[in-house]
């Protein structure tokens, strides 16, 4: 008897791998915003609105990933 039987689709694992890159990217974006705010607090508003657009573009990769995980996850079953 195996302690845990892993069933389901590999799409979930693939999505986990695919979320690494956007995770690092989003972290870099907000790290840059924090640094910029520390250096020049009055520029925070301008940086934040740009940062949210960059955040949305970076996150798009993870979102395409979750959509593909659903699509290909159901193909395999």
């Amino acid at each position, binding site marked *: *008897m195996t*302690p*845990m039987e892993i069933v389901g689709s590999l799409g979930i694992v693939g999505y986990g791998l695919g979320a690494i890159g956007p995770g690092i990217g989003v972290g870099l974006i907000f790290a840059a915003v924090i640094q910029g705010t520390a250096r020049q607090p009055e520029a925070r*508003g*301008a940086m934040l*609105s740009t940062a*949210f*657009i960059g*955040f*949305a573009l970076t*996150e*798009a990769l993870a*979102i*395409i990933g*979750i*959509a593909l995980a*659903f699509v290909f996850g159901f193909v395999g079953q």
Partner: protein
Amino acid sequence: MGLLIPLLVPMEGYEPPGVQSFDFPPLFPGAPAWVDRYLLQALVAFLLVGIFWLVMARKNKLVPSKGQFVGESAYFFLRDSIGRDMIGHEFRKYLPFLIAVFSFVLVNNLWGIFPLTLLPTASHVGWAYGLAGMVWILYNAIGLRKFGPLGYLKHVTMPPGVPGYMLPIVIPLEFFSNIIVRPITLSLRLFANMLAGHLLVLVFVLGGEYLLVESEPIINKVAGGASLIFSMAIFALEIFVQILQAYIFTVLTAQYISSASSEEH
């Protein structure tokens, strides 16, 4: 190892939440399949948003009352931080649309934490497609009306300052990214965030309930109670994500309108 197995796999008879948790029957027997909870929530949100802004827009005084202060703060936030920053000097034309989109998406997202509904409307992908399709038609129509068909195509696909030998690569890429990928990511961003957030809540609440009530070992009951308490933190995270997604949806709408209507930089 034999003793550990019930701790590792306390899952007999447990139905994990999944995509099927988002399928709901019609509201009343005999109704068509699309008259479901999502439609009801969206209609109530439409009424709430409309009544809120109509009430806020009438009987404004120089010295604002408390209610007028709330409405004016929301309006100024949307006008200054989204409209003026993103679109520029001709933002007034598009301000009503931005405000309507922001309030509608926000109320629909907040249904996910409202105790009587507990389901964000955009967690059904059709609603996200509808919203993003509306934005797509709008910004393309603005660009087409301003530049004409050929001019708009040139405006979209040929960024200024690109050397001629790069154009065969740049034109398909820009067309793909501006016309095809934009509505897809706009809708899927909203949908995936709402779906994933709601699934997270379901996992913590349903799993905690199963561990606490229906499984035997005492350590499972402790874990189930902790999971139920922790689900409150997940709800707090959900509030943040829902407001952020409404904001991002509106910011991107403004950004798309601005890039479709702006003159050459």
